């Protein structure tokens, strides 16, 4: 289980990223954040977000229009 889950379903660009950034602040270093989203653009955006910020996109998947991302926060 992830340390925290963020429900970003129904939100459009750039809200899933902005809310993920906020949620990550409360996740301990090397802890995990799970994000649920319905924005199809969030796949490319979370990949880019993680490349730029140094957090690790451990996995992402799609099931019935719901995108799930698991991000591991970088070490402090």
């Amino acid at each position, binding site marked *: 289980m992830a340390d925290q889950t963020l429900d970003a379903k129904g939100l459009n*660009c*750039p*809200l899933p*990223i902005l809310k993920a950034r906020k949620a990550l602040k409360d996740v301990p270093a090397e802890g995990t954040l799970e994000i649920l989203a319905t924005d199809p653009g969030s796949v490319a955006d979370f990949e880019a977000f993680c490349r730029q*910020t140094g957090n690790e996109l451990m996995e992402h998947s799609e099931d019935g229009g719901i995108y799930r991302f698991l991000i591991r926060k970088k070490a402090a």
Partner: protein
Amino acid sequence: MSAEEKSMSIIVTKGSLDWAYPPFILATTAAAMGLPVTMFFTFYGLPLLLKDLNLQLTAAGNPAMKMPMMGAHMGLPNLLTAIPGVDAACSKMMKNLMNKKGVAPIEELRELAVEAEVRLIACQMTMDLFEYSLDDMIEGPELGGAATYIEVATQSDINLFI
């Protein structure tokens, strides 16, 4: 390459409902990705800092503005956009559409920009020209002119004019 080494500035020159989005979306996202961001509000971009926003758009002169309606995309001929109330109706339709599609209101993006410590500079010349004072504006903007912006721009990796 680490994002922390990059920074961005945006000159915000337009204050209609549609044009308010690109600068605030890019500023908040860049800030979320770790970039220091500065927004310089000038001419019609300046009112985006007013406490009370009632953003409007006009379909006049914008052939690309077509709203999804009953399975088709409908635009307005320029002549009809001159009828009183049409711009207000179009603006309301756009806001309803945005709400339905989960697009954040500008007020929310602006709050997130302030929260993310985006540096907001209100163009002093525009303040004088249109007779605004900082009391009319949200908390946070500082005053500056062209030289203030140029200094920021020389230190930024990405400089956008919107």
